[in-house]
């Protein structure tokens, strides 16, 4: 599967990321780094330790990087989680939202694993 096909599968806009990052070559080069990015694991770990500040930062980073790669769904769910975790406004719905993020993340990683 090509990267473009993968984006199509995810309902994400491939052209958008190509324009934003300045070329297909750069997208291809940085996608493995996106897959290897530790933010998701940091989020899970922080959540388990009830480190809400760490969880907030991790979700904030995720929101930024998935936005940069035009992965709209995952970006939207992380952004929502991020707002729930924002220091001072902790929302008990965050745990449920984390499950949404997990599902979106699995979908993206699953799609990317088929590239090749």
């Amino acid at each position, binding site marked *: 599967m090509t990267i473009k096909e993968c984006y199509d599968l995810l309902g994400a806009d491939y052209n958008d990321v190509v324009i*934003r990052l300045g070329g297909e070559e*750069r997208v291809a080069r940085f996608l493995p*780094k996106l897959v290897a990015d530790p933010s998701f694991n940091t989020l899970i770990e922080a959540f388990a330790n009830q480190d809400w500040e760490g969880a907030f930062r991790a979700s904030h*980073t995720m929101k*930024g*990087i998935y*936005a940069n790669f035009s992965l709209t769904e995952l970006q939207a769910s992380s*952004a929502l989680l991020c707002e729930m975790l924002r220091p001072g406004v902790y929302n008990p719905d965050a745990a449920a939202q984390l499950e949404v993020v997990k599902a979106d993340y699995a979908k993206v990683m699953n799609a990317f694993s088929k590239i090749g």
Partner: protein
Amino acid sequence: MNNIGDNYKILIVDDSELNRSILSDILADRFEIAEACDGLEAVNYLEKHTTEVSLVILDLIMPVMDGMSVLEVMNKNNMIQNIPVIVISADQRAESVERAYKLGATDFIFRPFDSYMVYRRVQNTIMLYSKQKRLEELVTHQIYERSKNSRMLVSVLSHIVEFRNGESSAHCLNINTITEKLLNALLSRTNNYNIPRADVPIICTASSLHDIGKIAIPEAILNKPGKLTPEEFEIIKTHSLEGAKILNAVPFSKDEPLIRYAYEIARWHHERFDGRGYPDGLAGDRIPIAAQIVSIADVYDALTSERCYKAAYSHEQALDMIRNGECGQFNPLLMDCLEEIAPSLKEELGRDIALFEQSTRDLNTIANEVFSNPDLSSSNRSLHLLETERDKFKFFWENTNEVFFEYNAETSVLSFSKGAAYLVDGGSMVVDPLKPGFLDDRFNSIVALTLDKVLTLTSYEYTDFKDEVEWSGAIYRIEGRTVWDYEGEEPVMTSLYGYARRTEKTGATFQ
């Protein structure tokens, strides 16, 4: 890509390695990149490499120390004034954006960022900052040039007038201050005299040269305590024409406004509005306005200062004497101006002198102070600087029996130490000694001999000269150095100094 290249270093501060590497990839082909993974690392890096970093790209949400704290630190240590910061954040809340801008961020880029936009904004910011830096350098340079100009003139003044004239060194500064105040008061009333505002500092500097002609007056008369005889007074009166002659003979810059004003002031600062002054008996506004102003300043300061022939009058007494016409008639308009500035005059003059008593500062500081404090004119500042230098110089010059001399090519003035003066007809100064034939005809001394040798035997490549020569039956060790300005296409000699010391050897043993 105008002049933007690898010599600009960008510090990328972001806790996400992925973000840093994407930003680095976008910018690395044109800029040198450094990375920091949190605020603390960034601050440490900036402290060690302040001058190297041209721009910071800053994430806001980071562990250990966040982006706002980095901005706060950069405010505390003033880095924010010199290093532009572009904030990149997914945090779009207005309060964050506002806070970042208030803390001095130059620009704010929201995630998701567009690579082309990041590149462009970084480039534009760096170009703006480097343009501003170049402009700052240019202005600093121009202020430096201006103060150099003042230095040149004030050094002529101090050499020529104050060396021989028992006046206090505050005299010229006071004249400067009063002239400036009168001039500003006049300009706020009328512009009938066609004086551009930009000429105010020039006229003030030129006022320092009002008594330059006193070089031509014998010291015995200048410093005579008690009343002068009518003959002696006639001799004193020649100083205005003599001053005009000297300024007219300045080989360079004759058309400069500074020299033009100085000429008017030197020649006509003893004219009076009713035509009863000297040397030309000009009346009314036939007397150039700069000279009219300086004549009031001169009279006021002379009255309120102690001189070898009189005690100081009080501020109020001096004003009364001027009002009553005891010092001659002045332009009624200028009298109004004097009344306007009178209340502040006494206090202001005292403050100016206090200002000049502060320690010497370097020229950069002067430039900075002028930027931040428009009330201090740079000419006053440089006057102060020169005052200190001149004092030091004068001290050594007056307390040595050695034959020292210095020639300043900018002013064409050759001056001698006290020890040399007896060799040169008792004078301590000669104007334009390099005129053809001047050295041969006017004075024949070891100074002339040394000057001639140094001039002919040094060059911009070999600036130093040493020898032993015979003069008038004795052997002198002579040494000299020429100083060159290498800025232009051809090196130009700017000054020359040297000394001659009589050795134990006699002419006979030398041969």
